[in-house]
C-alpha cells in the first residue's frame, strides 16, 4: 500500500467514526466536539485531493464558523437537554432507511466506470483562475453576487430572529 492509500484510510476512518459519534452522542456538547473531528478528517482528505484552499475553507468556515455557532447554540440552550434523556426517536427504522440508501449509493458508485487515477496533474495558479472566474460575467459572477445577497439575508434575518425583545 502506498502512503496516500494509508493516509486516506486513516482520515476516512477518522471522519466516519467521528460522524457516527455525532449522531449517537448522549451529551450534545461531545457531539459538537466529534463534529469538529469529523470536519478535520474531511479537511485532511482535501489535502490528499491536492486542494489546500478547500481544506483551509473547511477549517475556516466549517470549524471556525459553523461549529463555533453550534457550540454557542448548545451553551445557550443548555438546560433543556439533560444528558440522560432519551435522544433517539425510532432508531431502527431510521437505521434501515440510512443503510438502504448507503447500499444503493455504493452499488451505483461501483457500477459506474470511474477513473482510477486523475487524468492530469492540478494546474499551477488554479486559485487565481478561480478568483478571476468569480467576477467574470461569463463565469461565476451571478453566484458570486447571489452569495452576497444570501449573506445579507443571513445577517439581517438571523439578527431579527435573535434580537432582544
Amino acid at each position: 500500500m502506498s502512503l496516500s492509500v494509508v493516509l486516506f484510510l486513516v482520515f476516512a476512518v477518522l471522519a466516519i467514526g467521528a460522524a457516527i459519534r455525532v449522531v449517537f452522542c448522549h451529551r450534545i456538547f461531545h457531539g459538537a466536539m466529534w463534529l469538529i473531528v469529523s470536519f478535520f478528517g474531511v479537511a485532511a482528505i482535501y489535502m490528499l485531493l491536492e486542494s489546500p484552499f478547500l481544506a483551509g475553507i473547511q477549517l475556516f468556515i466549517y470549524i471556525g464558523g459553523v461549529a463555533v455557532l453550534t457550540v454557542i447554540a448548545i451553551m445557550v440552550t443548555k438546560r433543556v437537554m439533560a444528558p440522560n434523556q432519551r435522544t433517539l426517536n425510532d432508531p431502527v427504522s431510521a437505521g434501515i432507511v440510512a443503510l438502504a440508501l448507503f447500499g444503493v449509493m455504493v452499488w451505483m458508485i461501483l457500477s459506474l466506470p470511474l477513473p482510477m487515477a486523475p487524468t492530469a496533474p492540478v494546474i499551477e495558479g488554479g486559485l487565481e483562475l478561480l478568483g478571476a472566474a468569480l467576477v467574470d460575467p461569463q463565469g461565476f459572477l451571478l453566484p458570486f453576487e447571489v452569495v452576497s445577497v444570501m449573506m445579507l439575508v443571513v445577517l439581517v434575518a438571523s439578527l431579527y430572529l435573535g434580537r432582544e425583545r
Partner: protein
Amino acid sequence: MIHPYALVGLFLLVAAIFGVAPQLIAWYLSPKKPSHRKLQAYESGNPTFGETWIEFKPQYYLFGLAFVAFDVEAAFLFPWALAYHQLALYAVVEAILFVGLLGFGLIYVWRKGWLTWM
C-alpha cells in the same frame, strides 16, 4: 522530493507533540494527592450552588451570527484578492458591490439597534 503538503502534516504532528509533551512530563513529575476539598470548584470558597452550567444570554449568539456572514464573505474575497492584478476595473466595482451589500446590512442592523448590548 517530499510533497509540501506532507511537510504541513509533519509540522502539525510536531506541534501536537509539543502540546502533549509538557503535560506528560508534568504528569510524571507532579505529586498526586487528591482530596475532596481540593477537587471542589473554585467559586470564591463557597460550595457551588444551583445549576453549574448556567445559560447565557442569546445576545452572545447574535454576534456569532454576524460573524458567520462576514466569515463567508472573507472566504470569497481571498481568491479575488489573489487574482486582483489581472482584473479590470469592473471586477473591482463588482467586489465593492459584493462587500457593500453586506456593509449595508451591517448599517441596517446597527441602526435598528440589534447590535447594542443590553
